[in-house]
């Protein structure tokens, strides 16, 4: 590297740092002069003087020292070398993430492509559950861990609840999507069966003439497919999983709302539930007592 060449980045940086050092030195001198002219005496001897002003000389000296040290040729060269390697470091950081993303996308496409392909008409017994759950799995394996990073500091509990709600919402969304895709399967299968039936009828020359008859065939086929689906254990499991995900999301969302409500002059749902429970128990006791009193007053009341 040519040190005295004015066009090189090194010499430009050197000149700039030199000017910077001189600027801080001048500022320091100006400050010292200003202090004396005001008759305030030496810093630290002013009793109840401005403490902010006391810290100025130290800060300015530190900045001056930093600029001077940075303008040393060795340090400057090191700094520039670091700057040159920055894109390389960034690339190294991004590369695994990108590779992971591509891998996930590939996996997702493979699994999604299998959705609905593995079952025959009127059969929901061997659904490719893995394919339906592809997104959930990927989420749980790859993304969920970031939401579980421990939170720190004063607001850690609030952050934790926020992360939990985000997590539960993602799971609910994924489960719901899976459930909806399951509900759509009979429509898909019915269309296929309907096409086959119509082809058969056409071969026999028995195609219906009225559009209503086509509709009747379709709705009957659809109903049959839904009944088969609803009776399958896969559907029941999926339904329960969706309801559980909804419940868990509702709880997580309520916790966040309660955090927000605590800041406002309104009771939270938990406050109200506690109150309702107390009311419920008290009312029940009063009603029981009323009945006992009534029975004592007129023992023949129970005819």
């Amino acid at each position: 590297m040519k040190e005295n060449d004015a066009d090189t980045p090194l010499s430009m940086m050197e000149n700039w740092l030199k000017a910077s050092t001189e600027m801080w030195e001048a500022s320091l001198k100006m400050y010292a002069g200003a202090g004396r002219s005001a008759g305030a005496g030496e810093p630290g001897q002013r009793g109840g003087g401005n403490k902010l002003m006391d810290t100025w000389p130290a800060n300015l000296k530190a900045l001056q020292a930093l600029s001077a040290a940075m303008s040393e040729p060795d340090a400057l060269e090191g700094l520039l070398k670091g700057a040159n390697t920055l894109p390389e470091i960034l690339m190294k950081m991004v590369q695994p993430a990108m590779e992971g993303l591509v891998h996930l996308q590939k996996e997702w496409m493979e699994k999604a492509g299998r959705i609905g392909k593995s079952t025959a008409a009127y059969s929901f017994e061997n659904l490719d559950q893995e394919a339906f759950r592809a997104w959930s799995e990927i989420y749980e394996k790859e993304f969920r861990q970031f939401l579980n990073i421990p939170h720190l500091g004063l607001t850690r509990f609030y952050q934790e609840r926020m992360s939990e709600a985000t997590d539960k919402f993602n799971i609910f969304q994924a489960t719901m999507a899976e459930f909806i895709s399951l509900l759509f399967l009979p429509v898909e299968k019915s269309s296929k069966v309907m096409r086959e039936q119509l082809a058969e009828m056409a071969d026999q020359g028995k195609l219906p003439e009225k559009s209503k008859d086509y509709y009747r065939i379709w709705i009957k086929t659809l109903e049959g497919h839904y009944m088969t689906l609803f009776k399958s254990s896969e559907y029941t499991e999926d339904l329960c999983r969706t309801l559980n995900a909804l419940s868990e999301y509702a709880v997580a969302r309520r916790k966040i709302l309660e955090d927000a409500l605590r800041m406002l002059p309104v009771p939270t749902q938990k406050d109200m539930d506690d109150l309702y429970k107390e009311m419920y128990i008290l009312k029940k006791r009063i009603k029981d007592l009323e009945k006992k009193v009534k029975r004592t007053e007129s023992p023949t009341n129970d005819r």
Partner: protein
Amino acid sequence: MTQTKIPVDLLLASLAEDAERAQVRAQKASDVLLDKLETDIAVTPYDVVYEEDRVKLKHYKPLGESTFNYPLLVVYALINRETMLDLQPDRSVVQTFLNNGVDVYMIDWGYPTRKDKFLTIDDHVNGYMDNIVDFIREKTNAKKVNLMGICMGGTFSVIYSALHPEKIKNLITTVSPTNFDTDQGLLHIWMKNVDADKLVDSLGNMPGDIMNLGFLLLNPARLMIDKYVGFMENMDNKSFVENFIRMEKWIFDSPDVPGETFRQFVKDLYQKNLLIKNELEIGGNRVDLQRVTMPVLNFYGKFDHLVPPGACNLLTSKVGSTDTRDVCIETGHIGIYVSGKSQKEFAPGIVQWLRDRDIDAEVRSQVA
């Protein structure tokens, strides 16, 4: 390969005809829909004679002197509303009862709110129902009342009759589940796997809309598609539109179910089937069906997909009564109350059965 012969000309002609008809229908339908429609439900006059918390007791205004010695208390389910028994003037179970001189009382469970989430089956049966029965007995000077339960209200009525047999003259159960260990109905299959604790702990009360969605999913092809196709095809018919909207008003009027009641109903009944096994405990007392010694009339629908015959038809063999009767009508869960056929079979059948048993035991022995 032989060429398939498709009658394209006939199909096109049919489509053209359909399109023409649809256009005419749409024109008429706009007149019907923009006209004033009579879609009110539950129009039979009544007085609210008792109130406790959210619960009200309706007393229908008699059309004349009651021809029965014992009043009738109708207990509806906590799901949907009791207005179904008085859906439209010409198809009203309540009207049929009144026309035949029955003194009709009906429980309106109201709309539970968050504060009702702690209410259990015990609170409904030994609390509200018992207070209401006592109120009616006091008001009418009758020693006992006739009790008629609808669906879940029928289950409550069976429990009540076992716990307080001295207050019940006759018990009528209609589409009421008492045996939950059956796989005839999808609801029974699904409920066995539902985590009731999780749902109640997170949602408080069980939202009516979620339950309604569940009912629609029992047969989406018919309930979410075919039903509305039927409406489109008949929307130029004013009377059809009015009745359709009445039914829509009723079906989507779904109060939430108090959380603790839902939890207990699912766990003790749907999942453990404790009632029919005489193992159910309510308010610290075991529900023993052998204590149901009054006459029992048990109605259910052959094509009921919510409460299938298998969930209803064990009851009469398990109760202590010697006067029991099962009636299976060829209809569904709602059809039993509103279908044209049921209007002749269902409510008049109940009236006659009650009339045959309206006589006091003492009088009966004297007559004998």
